[in-house]
């Protein structure tokens, strides 16, 4: 299967060997167990998912191996809890303080947890890399997670201030930092993607999404009588809005226009999101380098749309199935509540069914998303790759050991997990 077929024509090829059905079965069973264990099973599911994705990804005739274990993830999570409990307790106590500290707590918590989240992302990447084994050699990651976290948070602020225009440069800069500190054995990684290349690809999309919003902001600036507004604010009082409306008869129309434009922007964003994902994925994978081994991606955008179509199709089927199942349940509850109106059993049952339905629906949609879009992005992203200089992969020497799973645990507790 793997090595036996590695002929010269396959040199530098990346293939994905996993079956969609097998992956969907794995995810569906995992979702059921997640529900039954209130989420504790997630460490085992995550490990299964990674084992599947890693060991079905074949690079130049050899598959990857994921050597992490669920127990490591669980331990990392417990350690992260031990770290986070005092932090959360501190924020809770600080929030009770009414002085400046109390006012600033929200901001401090936001920034502090943001930095910690980026720290966790970097440490989690290190955990995953050191558990990735290829041809008997580990990947490793050096570098400081704190330096990365500060860079990442600074970039996020810049990106927010430039309405997203700095995002390509953020991605490029952070990816350069990550790859500069990544090694396959003794073979050093680097990132060769340029931010402006991604900017050029992304700019039309950015304009399409931002233009309607900008139009509505401009309409507001035109319509609002700023002098009257300043007067109203100066007077204070409780009926600010009525003052503003009184002075600007056109304001109602402008609000309708703004809502329309926001809707247009949202629809465009949803339609363009697969393009955005494909563009970023192609740009990212094309920039990966290990020594003289270079990757080039030929990812097609319509393939990503195909994955989203499958997601929509299965989501519709799932929704219909949920609806069909819900009807007899609701009738049963109505019957029980009708028989025993005094006990409140109907209320409780309705709450439980509502809650259960919500969890089943959310888990269901996320499972379908993982089994369609996320799997396809992995598979398409991998299979679109062509490596040059892959012969080098046969002569790399080993280096480095395994790392602690703490970052992974923090990432889990802070809700910033990835694959």
């Amino acid at each position: 299967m793997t090595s036996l077929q590695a002929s010269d024509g396959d040199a530098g090829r990346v293939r994905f060997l996993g079956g969609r059905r097998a992956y969907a079965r794995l995810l569906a069973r995992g979702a059921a167990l997640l529900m039954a264990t209130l989420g504790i099973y997630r460490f085992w599911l995550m490990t299964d998912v990674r084992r599947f994705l890693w060991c079905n990804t074949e690079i130049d005739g050899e598959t990857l191996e994921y050597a992490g274990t669920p127990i490591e993830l669980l331990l990392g999570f417990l350690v992260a809890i031990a770290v986070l409990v005092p932090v959360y307790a501190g924020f809770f106590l600080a929030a009770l303080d009414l002085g400046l500290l109390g006012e600033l707590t929200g901001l401090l918590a936001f920034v502090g947890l943001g930095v910690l989240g980026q720290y966790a992302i970097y440490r989690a990447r290190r955990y995953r890399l050191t558990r990735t084994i290829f041809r008997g050699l580990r990947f490793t990651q050096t570098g400081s997670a704190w330096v990365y976290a500060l860079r990442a948070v600074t970039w996020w602020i810049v990106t927010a201030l430039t309405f997203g225009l700095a995002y390509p440069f953020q991605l490029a800069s952070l990816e350069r930092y990550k790859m500069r500190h990544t090694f396959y054995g003794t073979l050093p990684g680097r990132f060769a993607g340029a931010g402006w290349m991604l900017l050029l690809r992304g700019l039309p999309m950015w304009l399409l999404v931002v233009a309607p919003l900008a139009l509505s902001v401009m309409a507001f600036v035109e319509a609002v009588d700023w002098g009257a507004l300043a007067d109203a604010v100066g007077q204070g009082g409780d009926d600010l809005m009525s003052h503003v409306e009184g002075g600007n008869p056109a304001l109602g129309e402008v609000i309708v226009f703004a809502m329309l434009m926001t809707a247009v922007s949202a629809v465009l964003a949803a339609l363009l999101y697969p393009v955005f994902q494909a563009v970023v994925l192609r740009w990212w994978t094309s920039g990966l380098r290990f020594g003289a081994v270079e990757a080039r991606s030929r990812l097609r955008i319509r393939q990503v749309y195909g994955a989203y179509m499958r997601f929509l199709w299965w989501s519709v089927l799932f929704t219909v199935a949920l609806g069909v199942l819900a009807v007899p349940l609701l009738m049963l509850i109505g019957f029980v509540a009708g028989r025993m109106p005094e006990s409140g059993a109907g209320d409780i049952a309705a709450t439980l069914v509502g809650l259960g339905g919500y969890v089943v629906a959310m888990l269901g949609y996320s499972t379908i998303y993982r089994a369609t879009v996320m799997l396809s992005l992995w598979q398409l992203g991998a299979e679109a790759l062509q490596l040059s200089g892959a012969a080098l992969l046969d002569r790399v020497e080993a280096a480095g050991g395994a790392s602690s799973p703490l970052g992974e645990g923090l990432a889990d507790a802070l809700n910033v997990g990835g694959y």
Partner: protein
Amino acid sequence: MDQATNGTNVGTGVFFDGRISTRRDVRVTLGSRLLEIDDTNGRLLAEWPYEEIEGLPAPDGVLRLGRHGHVRLERLEIFDAAFAAAVDARAANVDRTGALLHRQRLAVVGFSMLAVASLVLVAWLGVPALAGRVAPLLPVAVEQRLGAAVDLQVRNALDTRHTGAAFACGSGDDKAQARAALARVTQRLEAAAALPLPLTFTVVRRKEANALAIPGGQIYVFEGLIDAAENADELAAVLAHEIGHVAHRDGTRAVLQGAGLSFLFGMLLGDFVGGGAVVIAARSVLQSSYSREVEAAADTYAVGLMQKMGGNGRALAAILARIGGATEPGMKILRDHPDTKARVATIERLAPAAPGQAMLSPADWTALRGICKG
């Protein structure tokens, strides 16, 4: 395939020695105690004791082996199914069929469910018990500080400024009589309750027939409650109920419980999809189950306080029956809700049917009713 694979004791494979990434085609011999790996020239590359051999994740059709706990990541891959089965038969830690994994997973699921059961028990019994023990120990100053923080949020949530009128009623010069009438009621209540912390009563422009006690002694009286009350005794009885919450430190306890439950479910359950909604729903379900006992205790307190002042102990029952027990936000406003019926019955059992002495003169009551008008 060469002829060596015909016997199940000898087969072929691919070997990585863990020092360098070079792929080596190898001959694998299954000895009595050792698995022997030779390159195609017959040079010995590795000898693995069977008890150290472990199976590793691999794609379908490949048996990937490694040495457990070994410093170098030596890897041997076998592609021939019959030979893989022969290795599996000799090495106890190789789990080619996944039967061992399946048994381990069953144990994981079983223990996780036990953990869930214990978590639910802690949430159901442990958190309220802990909050109940801790709340009375908090100094009044801490409680007032906590209350001020909660008060900010409640004000933001309840404020009706957008309707064009102030949130709190009774600030105008023409409301002096109304303010005095309210003060007469609240001062009598406060004197009779004799709490260690001062109470503040504020009438606010909300249409719901409701009142709300914040930790630290702030009590909001909704305009709708004054409209729904038929006399000052009914209003005083609801206020007495809220004073009961302050006296029992119910608000503080609720904040502690909320924090405890958020932590328990939010943090331990982590980021599986829908987890956030489960936390919120679990909180509201559990807290409403706590609140039944809490409400009953506040009712009893209110009846006692009304009787202590010589007022009508049954006034609370009368107004509850009318407004349907919606004295707490988030509770269902249902006229025939069984909870309300039970509460009314309990109050009527506690208090004799004596009308008592009216709290306010008819003129004062009329003035008080107009506190938010105009």
